[in-house]
């Protein structure tokens, strides 16, 4: 009844091509942003920011990057953690080795370094495909894990191999309080989400999708697989690298390579698949599901006053989490984003479905 596009006529190409062609959607997004930028900073608790929202935003950004590679270009990667690590350590090095390097500059340079490494590890994708590629990307994962532990130059010769940053600020504004950190992450995520959404609508984005759907056919119609695959690796690694910088600098503050272990790579791939392949929105749904669900499940027995031991709770969380993943894959293999769009379809006809 409320959600209906009847009567919304498009009179220009620009109107036809906008990201949210329906007025109600624009309104909803506007409200969401308003809540995120204005209401949340005033209402949220410190715990909500530091333990839930900041990790959610950063991992959503990483999932967004991975989605470009997996969801849009069809190249499965299990090395996402590695590219996050490259971003984080590169930014750290730019920060400590160049005096007066601003945070944003270090972040973007970190992302660019991740791009270079990503393209390098993307080269085999020209020859290796599918699951073989997925496992081969683990080479990147284990190599970077090792490199950041072993090559002390990367950690500025820290004896323990753990590095940390302090005194972050953007244009003179300190990024110390949870709210500031949250707003900083939110801004970065919004910018990148918008950029990614638009990028997927360009010629390059369409080439990625053609490669994903069938690379031989795409090559036949004149799409260069080299260009398409490597740009996907580049863009994806850049975003993932930036997410790595945020994770290390803003969320953790001090870190070691274990923060970007193979578990992180699997976690991100989960987000992309559960959220929905080839959907920007999906990355957010997936991140919400994977980040928030275990936290909630963890607190359920506590809230209900059921005296379960810590170990049992944790095992149950594992089991329920695993079962829910399988359930959602069966219920909707195309992810939560697909469920969302089905919901919207139904809403259009509601309350009078034919």
């Amino acid at each position: 009844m409320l959600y209906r596009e009847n009567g919304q006529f498009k009179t220009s190409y620009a109107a036809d091509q906008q990201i949210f062609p329906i007025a109600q959607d624009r309104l909803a997004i506007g409200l969401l942003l308003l809540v995120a930028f204005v209401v949340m900073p005033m209402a949220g608790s410190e715990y909500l920011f530091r333990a839930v929202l900041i990790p959610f935003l950063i991992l959503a950004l990483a999932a967004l990057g991975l989605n470009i590679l997996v969801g849009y270009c069809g190249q499965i990667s299990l090395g996402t953690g590695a590219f996050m690590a490259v971003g984080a350590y590169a930014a750290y090095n730019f920060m400590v080795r160049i005096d007066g390097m601003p945070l944003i500059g270090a972040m973007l340079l970190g992302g660019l370094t991740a791009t270079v490494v990503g393209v390098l590890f993307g080269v085999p994708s020209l020859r290796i495909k599918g699951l073989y590629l997925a496992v081969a990307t683990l080479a990147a994962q284990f190599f970077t894990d090792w490199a950041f532990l072993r090559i002390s130059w990367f950690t500025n010769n820290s004896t323990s191999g753990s590095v940390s940053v302090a005194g972050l600020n953007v244009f003179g504004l300190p990024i110390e309080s949870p709210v500031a950190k949250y707003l900083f992450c939110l801004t970065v995520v919004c910018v990148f989400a918008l950029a990614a959404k638009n990028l997927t609508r360009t010629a390059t984005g369409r080439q990625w999708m053609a490669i994903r759907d069938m690379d031989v056919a795409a090559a036949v119609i004149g799409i260069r697989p080299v260009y398409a695959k490597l740009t996907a690796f580049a863009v994806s690694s850049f975003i993932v690298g930036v997410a790595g910088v945020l994770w290390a600098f803003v969320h953790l503050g001090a870190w070691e390579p274990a923060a970007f272990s193979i578990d992180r790579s699997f976690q991100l791939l989960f987000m992309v698949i559960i959220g929905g392949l080839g959907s920007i929105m999906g990355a957010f749904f997936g991140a919400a599901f994977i980040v928030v669900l275990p936290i909630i499940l963890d607190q359920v027995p506590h809230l209900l006053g059921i005296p379960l031991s810590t170990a049992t709770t944790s095992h149950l969380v594992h089991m329920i989490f695993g079962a829910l993943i399988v359930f959602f894959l069966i219920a909707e293999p195309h992810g939560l984003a697909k469920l969302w769009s089905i919901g919207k379809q139904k809403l259009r006809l509601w309350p009078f479905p034919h």
Partner: protein
Amino acid sequence: MGFFLETLFGGLMAGMLYSLIALGFVLIYKASGVFNFAQGAMVLFAALAMARFAEWIPKWLGFDNLILANLLAFGVAMALMVVLAWVIERLCLSKLVNQEGITLLMATLGISYFLDGLGQTLFGNDIYSINVGMPKEPAMILEGTFQGGLLISKEDLVAALIAAGLVLALALFFQKTTTGRALRAVADDHQAAQSIGIPLNRIWVIVWSVAGFAALVAGIIWGSKLGVQFSLSLVALKALPVVILGGLTSVPGAILGGLIIGVGEKLSEIYLGSFFGGGIEIWFAYVLALGFLLVRPQGLFGEKIIDRV
């Protein structure tokens, strides 16, 4: 020279153990097109069941005989793996027929989370031991030829022999029995197999049970070597380069791949490691596999990937 040979043997035997786990991946991929990431969790689950039942059964039944306890525990653990295979097929795989490879892969990751939780809830999360009488002390051979002799770990040798026996048995099972032939038919073409009356669902249960059996044997060998505890599920990561190097669909590939990776990583760690500061074997295995794949993208013995438009 003596040390080189020792390293070589060590690598070969480690490789055999990797093959054992890789075998589970290959069996399932061959018959159902699922890249089963839960293999590691299955190894842990099976080993936990084996270790705990070997401890519990004598207590319940009130006898004290290690061999009998191990045999009974093996039986119970195997039954458990069959039930598991059936449940996985029923609740999960049969509903995911015709889905993309990556969705299936993620489903098996979901299964592995579930199994990790379930195994530890049922059997506890301490460190347990499996005692099947593996020899622990090393043996020295050829002491006349080389100074100080060649050190061979008897435990690894026995394990490698068991692994080799298992592989042979599975190869025979695939080649000579009716069920094996049905499995191969399903592997070739799901639809064609179904149309000539091979029950797909039952075949899948069988395959997952066989993979469960491979997991159980791997669990016992690795468990007796390392102790049964959560980390056992991580040895699957060592088997992944083996699987892609050998080819996802090839049993001999899993064996040869295992040997190449085993030898490659040990030699690299010892002879190249010092130039890089050590600890390189884990990524070296993957880089080695990657190198092979660049030459043969389908692995050493994998079926040739033919692209059709």
